[in-house]
């Protein structure tokens, strides 16, 4: 079916806005005074595309502004209609679950767009180089011209990522899910490699692409096994067959297992995360932030859809419980250990993002253990989604600070952060808030999400302990292993404090390499400050409750009862 009914159009207004914006970015910068002569007459009809461009539409800053406008409008439409429910065609269905993720993705994209405006700046008054210019001036002018030229490319791809992500959140068919993930992924590979003139960027993009393709291939293979087993890839059909099946068919089990590889790559779970640190440090910070927040959230949507939505048994242990539990512990430990001695802030953030994926996988594992009550399941899902939402604030916030540093070409060494507290107290203070929040220090938003996660896991498992135990130690021997996932999170958090605080340490206690203030990127600074403030406010005020209400509404829609 090609044409949508009115109701369906209303449901996907935010996505349609993105589509219109996308077309707008392609068209608007090309508006010009081109005319076509009607054959055999002298009448010249203006066709407006091509020719000499109009002044307002040829402004190189236009694509960025259009993208930002599109995303903000889409965000508000999505937010206003966040309880919409209904099917669109056969493969998409809108509900508050998909809307919450839509909001997460769009928020990340908005931040990405804001920082891209300063990271890949467009300058409206660049002149072409002439012969009297010195060599370095020529190369600078050429750089600026190139940056101007590729504004459109960058922002089209950015919107493409957004479109892919928000459609994948709505997918109710496995095939649709995969296509949308690939749309978003392929676009993000390009974004990683966008600065092709820098060797690191190109290499990182290539590696990310190769490893990602392998993961996708494995996933698609798993999907084909599932198709062999069921002959229908819609989520409802799969869930029904899964519930009806007696025991677990090897074909289906392996199929799901192989799909985990693809999604594991997306969320950055060990051992599929290895390309991620390279990609983060090779990509520009706006893109790295996108990978660490929106892309990760996308992976978790898929994980939740498959693991919780389809294969979670009504009672008893899910067949993937041990696998996910193992992966989660390995992932968080690996991420934290690797971050300990890293000297590149972007790699530290990349590994921290791996560790956070581990925490969230531990939550999924606790749900799959079969001992979690409905309430505990909801609690953990709320915790995961809330964590993904607030990550946009403090993980992306940290990348925003790094992109501010990148405007002077530095953010790859810990030394670049030295003395930031003296140079830019507000930025350094915000960065410190982000680090504390990532570490889960109360009363910040990161604490709340981690607390909810641990509370959920403990809540699920604590009743399994023997009430007759005399001592706590003895009791710990009797409790279900799920309880130890919470302990693993706690110990890993303790380990992670080391590298988070190290960033704070070098910012405030080391002498800066230069005293020059950073570029006065007003919108970027504003975004950083807002992120830091929200990180605090969500942690201590009732605004956090409101966000949790929206999320718990989404979770109830998803669980269905």
């Amino acid at each position, binding site marked *: 079916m090609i044409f949508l009914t009115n109701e369906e159009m209303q449901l996907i207004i935010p996505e349609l806005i993105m589509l219109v914006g996308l077309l707008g970015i392609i068209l608007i910068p090309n508006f010009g005074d081109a005319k076509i002569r009607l054959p055999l007459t002298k009448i010249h009809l203006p066709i407006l595309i091509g020719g000499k461009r109009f002044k307002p539409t040829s402004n190189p800053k236009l694509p960025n502004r259009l993208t930002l406008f599109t995303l903000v409008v889409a965000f508000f439409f999505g937010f206003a209609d966040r309880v919409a429910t209904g099917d669109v065609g056969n493969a998409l269905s809108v509900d508050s679950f998909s809307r919450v993720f839509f909001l997460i993705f769009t928020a990340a994209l908005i931040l990405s767009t804001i920082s891209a405006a300063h990271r890949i700046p467009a300058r409206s008054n660049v002149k072409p180089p002439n012969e009297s210019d010195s060599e370095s001036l020529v190369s600078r002018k050429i750089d600026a011209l190139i940056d101007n030229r590729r504004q459109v490319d960058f922002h089209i791809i950015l919107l493409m990522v957004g479109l892919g992500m928000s459609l994948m959140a709505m997918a109710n068919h496995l095939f649709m899910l995969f296509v949308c993930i690939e749309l978003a992924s392929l676009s993000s590979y390009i974004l990683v490699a966008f600065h092709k003139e820098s060797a690191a960027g190109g290499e990182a993009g*290539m590696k990310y692409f190769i490893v990602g393709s*392998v993961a996708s291939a494995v996933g698609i293979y798993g999907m084909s096994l599932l198709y062999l087993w069921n002959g229908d890839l819609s989520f409802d059909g799969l869930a029904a067959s899964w519930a009806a099946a007696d025991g677990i068919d090897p074909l289906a089990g392996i199929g799901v297992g192989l799909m985990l*590889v693809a999604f594991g790559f997306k969320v950055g779970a060990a051992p599929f995360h290895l390309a991620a640190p390279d990609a983060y440090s090779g990509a520009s910070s706006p893109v790295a932030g996108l990978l660490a927040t929106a892309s990760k959230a996308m992976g978790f949507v898929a994980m939740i859809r498959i693991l919780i939505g389809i294969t979670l048994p009504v009672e008893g242990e899910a067949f993937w419980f041990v*696998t996910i539990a193992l992966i989660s512990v390995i992932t968080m430990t690996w991420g934290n*250990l690797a971050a300990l001695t890293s000297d590149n802030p972007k790699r530290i953030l990349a590994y921290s993002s791996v560790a956070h994926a581990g925490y969230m996988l531990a939550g999924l594992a606790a749900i799959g253990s079969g001992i979690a009550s409905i309430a505990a399941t909801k609690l953990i899902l709320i915790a995961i989604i809330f964590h993904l939402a607030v990550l946009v604030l403090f993980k992306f916030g940290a990348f925003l600070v790094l992109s501010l540093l990148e405007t002077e070409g530095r953010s790859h060494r810990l030394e670049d952060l030295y003395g930031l507290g003296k140079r830019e107290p507000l930025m350094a203070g915000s960065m410190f808030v982000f680090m504390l929040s990532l570490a889960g220090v109360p*009363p910040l938003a990161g604490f709340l999400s981690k607390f909810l996660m641990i509370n959920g896991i*403990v809540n699920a498992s604590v009743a399994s302990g023997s009430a007759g135990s005399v001592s706590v130690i003895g009791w710990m021997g009797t409790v279900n292993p799920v309880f130890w996932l919470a302990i693993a999170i706690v110990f890993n958090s303790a380990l992670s404090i*080391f590298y988070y605080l190290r960033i704070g340490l070098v910012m405030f206690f080391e002498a800066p390499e230069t005293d020059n203030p950073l570029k006065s990127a007003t919108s970027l600074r504003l975004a950083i400050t807002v992120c830091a403030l929200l990180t605090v406010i969500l942690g201590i005020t009732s605004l956090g409750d409101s966000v949790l209400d929206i999320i718990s509404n989404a979770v109830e829609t998803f669980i269905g009862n």
Partner: protein
Amino acid sequence: MSETKNEYKLLLPLVPILAIIPYLAIVQGWESIDAAIFIVAAPFVAFPTILILGQVYNKNKTWKNTWKEGGILGIGALGVSLSAAIWILFDYLNGTAHFANHSVSHWLEWISFDVLQADYTMTETRILGMGVWIDSLTLMLLFVATFLCFLICWFAIGYMTTNPINEDSNHRFFAEFVLFSMGMFGMVLADNFLWLFIFWEIMGLCSYLLIGFYYWKDSAAKAAKKAFLTTRVGDVFLMVGLFILYDIYGSLEFAVVFDDPSTGVGGALVDSGQMFWALTMLFIGAIGKSAQFPLHVWLPDAMEGPTPVSALIHAATMVNAGLYLVARMMPFVDIHHHGIAGLEDFGIMVAYIGGITAFMAASIAFVQNDIKKVLAYSTMSQLAYIFTGLGSALYFLNIGNYHAGYFVLGASLFHLFNHAMAKGMLFMASGSVIHEVHHAHDHLSSSHDDGGHHDFDPQDMRNMGGLASKMPVTATAMMFGSMSIIGIPLIGGFWSKEGIIAETWAAYFHGESAMLVPAILILATAGMTGFYMSRMWFMTFAGQPKNEVVDHVHETTPWIKEPLLILTLITAIGGFVLALYGVIDFLSNESSHLAMHGDQGIVDSIITQLEHAFLPEDSQMRMVGWVTIFLALFVGPIMAARIHGGSLKDGETATPIVGWLVNLSGKFGTQDVSSLAESDLAEALQNRLYIDDLYEGIIARTVIPFADLCAWFDRNVIDGLIKQIESNSVLGSVQIRRVTTGSARDYILMATVGALSIFALLLGVSN
């Protein structure tokens, strides 16, 4: 004087800030109880603001002259607190707002979570948050704290910013000042022992910072450490007390604990022995904070801080915290309202501590020559009065004589009010004296340029004398303050001190022979107070100048006089007026509003009140009352006048009452006490009865070796363990990062290994 006038326009930017509370009250129609958050929030916001602005704009002219290095912001924040507190007070007195059930209002509910129970189930939900608890005790302390903090901040703007030694560091002072104030406001408002403790500790921290404000001075740094560590000893006990309370009631919320103190968690009857220990532990915490024997040693040294800090700590905030805590204990012992019987020993113990401290501090004050030290010991002694009164109240309530119990409770709290007002003013007045003497000295030595005055101490009363004519406002203020502290009839403290002494004796007359000791001690102290306070005043203001500096003293510093005048008024007539309006019943929660007794006219009321004070029906009480008045009014002051009194230089005049007093003091003749001053007793008093030395000796022999042992353990065992973990983690980190080779081939290999592992794991499960 023109300088003074110009400065007030600096307050103009505060008008919108101060309009917040009236705006909320009138335009928005808020309940006053909901505005309670502003009392704490305003200084809480001001603290980082002042600190950060001060760092950024340090040495900036506007910041210095217009914003007074943050003082204007501080006074604005405290003004908001004060206006909110007054609003609540008025609502409470009018009974217009919803203050039912002690008006618990939760305005901060942060997170709720499940608690692991003893049987390993998670059922109970706790909310980590804070609410407000309002009764007359809260309101009185809240008013005292907000009002005095406001005035002291006003005073400090003048005092601190004109002192060149504070150059460019005053933002630190004002920031810590408002944080300190916030600690006190929060502690008084808290509806939960835990929050009470948290704010209590914030005050402890700030007292450390403020006493050590001149941290480059060795003595100040040491005094700060001493204050912090001594109160810390009390705090540890306080914490133990809270643990016991939690054990008994399963909660630290006032609403739960005070609902029915006789039954603990699960309806079990509370054991009086356990309760005794809980209260004793809390009481030790209170002793530390309120500087009572044997944890009193920090308070005199705390005078190393700037004078406004002394006023803040000794009048408005910190020392009152301990009294507040003890006053909060009343429901535990009040057997008419579900209290626990058999705790009368606790009350007697409190009274003993009070009696001993009162006597000891007063005797040490005899020989002090530093004007602030006299006031410090006087604080200690007066607080001890209040403790004695609270002890009697605890005793009476526990034996069931609630009439006497509530009366003495109210009297004690009234004395707290009177003392806070008088002492706040005395400290500010002494600050004014010190400040002006210091200025005069600087002026003199710069014009003489001889540099021979370096050992000049502007706080030493032996350098003063005859200041009555130079500083009329200060002399008058200090006179009323001293009278209030002494308990001169009709003035301030008389109305409350009388009640405390009378009821302590009443406890003895009612058959508790153990109460004789504190009763005698505080009665004797009444006379001694008369002596040392008069001595201080005469030494400073009466007689001939003892130093040429005095001739150059003028009262010129702006911002200093207004708070003195306001407090003089309150001290002089406030006590009488409030007594007339039945404040004692109000403070003991017997009545919820202030009103004159019965339906009498004002004249009849005054007569009744005077009769009650001077001619009680009970002959024993009458005797005690008249002995007190005799000692305080005649014996002490006349002895002081004989030694230190003297008329002014010829031709110099002072304000009417001051001048009359000064000349009167000259008529008692002079007495030479140099032989007494060189006696062993005087030396022992000079050395604070060797208690500090004793502590140092004990600490050197016990605590320090133990601390060394702990330090060794910490360095070698704990740090060793942590370093081991760290080096192993780093080792692991290096190893694990080797896997990240940077080659896509290796990554795919690892992914394949992962995929195969999943494959194998799931294959196992599937079959």
